């Protein structure tokens, strides 16, 4: 098990805000000092561009950049050449979608789920419109869980792409990605998996999952904002076209407009990348591996169970995903609009997310279109859960309106 009080010391945000209860980790995470240092050192000690300088600092940054790619690869069980750096997971998904456009033809089907975040739906919707494809939905149960049987029933010969989150961002449902991928592959379909809510919290091995493409963001896993990752099976990456054309990604080009691109992953990284962010991302990956993803997962699971048990005892709170053992807790204060309740919690120095969490069609499944999402991370504590529950007890209409006086 992990030493949380020691871990909390790694995070300046916690030291600087000792009374803040930050349960909005599904939105973004705090950064440990080592990641901040990695970013700051680039500004203060070794600024340069990458892949184009002949001096020592430039060579150092080339090395740090490549090491970051190796660290991220190690984090998810991939090879370094299968790791593409983007600007966030949304960019990763858009790159994946763009890269697959030549592998589909009119009438083909893309299979998605209603629990997906906007970023794992809208790019597919646009591709479907442009290429005259069909969008179909994988059936879900009342807590937005996919089942292997349900997936099998939705799968057919026409499905060429399957896009699903490993852990959904609202309810934290862990989907059976490995089994789904196996079935999808037996039909010859390509699987994209959104790992934004998985990679920060659990050991992910993309080879074991078998997925063809996998995306996540650095900022939710203790890394800087502005960096996303797209993993791709190497032979598939080689077949895919880059979204962006420009510097660094081409090998040579001629006046007659012929362009020869570099190999993946470099061909997807046009222009000067977010160098310090990527170096910081590598450091974040190392930091998580030092603590141990299995340790993080076990601790969060225990913390969530503790929190759920206390919160579920409150009469004024309705919880939408009580049977999930993992991920955020979604609830409402009975009779109150989510934003009003979140506003009251904010007045007690508690940060949560209210609303529909960018999953705007999920309400078809869970029967409400707005919730409060409390999402934990490994630096949260039972003591914080206790304080949260004390505050949650007091969520009433009167108190929610009372914050304005």
């Amino acid at each position, binding site marked *: 098990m992990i030493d949380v009080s020691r871990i909390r010391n790694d995070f300046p945000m916690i030291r600087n805000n000792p009374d803040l209860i930050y349960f909005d980790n599904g939105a973004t995470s705090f950064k440990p000092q080592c990641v901040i240092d990695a970013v700051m050192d680039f500004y203060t000690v070794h600024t340069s561009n990458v892949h184009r300088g002949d001096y020592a600092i430039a060579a150092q940054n080339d090395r740090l950049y490549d090491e970051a790619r190796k660290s991220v690869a190690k984090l998810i069980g991939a090879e370094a050449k299968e790791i593409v750096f983007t600007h966030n997971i949304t960019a990763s998904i858009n790159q994946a979608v763009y890269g697959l456009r030549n592998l589909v033809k009119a009438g083909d089907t893309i299979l998605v789920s209603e629990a997906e975040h906007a970023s794992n739906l809208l790019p597919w919707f646009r591709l479907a419109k442009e290429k005259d494809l069909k969008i179909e939905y994988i059936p879900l149960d009342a807590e937005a869980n996919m089942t292997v049987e349900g997936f099998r029933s939705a799968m057919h010969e026409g499905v060429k792409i399957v896009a699903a989150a490993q852990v959904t961002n609202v309810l934290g449902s862990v989907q059976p990605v490995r089994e789904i991928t196996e079935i999808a592959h037996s039909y010859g379909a390509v699987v994209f998996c959104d790992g934004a809510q998985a990679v920060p919290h659990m050991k992910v091995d993309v080879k074991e999952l078998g997925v063809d493409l996998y995306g996540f963001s650095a900022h939710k896993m203790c890394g800087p904002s502005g960096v996303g990752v797209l993993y791709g099976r190497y032979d598939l990456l080689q077949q895919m076209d880059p979204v962006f054309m420009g510097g660094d990604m081409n090998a040579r080009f001629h006046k007659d407009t012929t362009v020869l691109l570099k190999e993946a992953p470099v061909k997807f990284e046009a222009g000067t990348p977010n160098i310090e962010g990527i170096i910081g991302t590598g450091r974040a990956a190392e930091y998580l591996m030092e603590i141990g993803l299995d340790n993080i997962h076990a601790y969060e699971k225990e913390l969530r169970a503790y929190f759920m048990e206390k919160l579920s005892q409150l009469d004024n709170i309705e919880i939408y995903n009580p049977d999930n053992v993992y991920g955020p807790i979604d609830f409402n204060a009975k009779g109150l*609009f*989510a*934003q*009003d309740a979140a*506003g009251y919690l904010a007045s007690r120095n508690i940060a949560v997310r*209210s*609303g*529909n969490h960018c999953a705007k069609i999920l309400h078809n499944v869970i029967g409400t*279109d*707005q919730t409060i999402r409390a999402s934990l991370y490994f630096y949260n504590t039972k003591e914080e859960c206790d304080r949260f529950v004390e505050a949650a007890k007091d969520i009433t*209409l*009167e108190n*929610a*309106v*009372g*914050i*304005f*006086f």
Partner: protein
Amino acid sequence: MSNVNSLLNDPAILRELIMDHYQYPHHHGLVEDENYASVHMASDSCIDDITVQSLIRDGKVEDIRFDGVACTISTASTSMMTDLLRGKSVEEAQAIIDTYFAMIEAKEYDPDVLEEAVAFQNVYKQANRIKCATIGWKAMDQMIAESENKG
């Protein structure tokens, strides 16, 4: 100072007013009448989603109605607005709207003009809720501008 105004200085009373307008909003529910103008407001930062209807005729706000799903602040502020603006001339209504926006933006304003709506005088302290407190009012502001363009 009148008795009414002294009541409107009492935070407990103002809080009750907001709660009351939220739980029992006034002029709630839309009508199907093509003489009404209508504006659908969906806030892009939250999920408030309301529609405001108005009947503006001969320079007068004859009716305002609204419906939708929204938080306490959105619902109560829109409900109070319907009370305040109904029966007023377009000029009077515009003056009240301008005063309300001045209050929300923490500028100088005349509280007597706003009556119960002074309950939202502190919203400016919570920047993320300013949209809630103005969503219905903006809809009405827009409909008045459109009626004047037509007229």
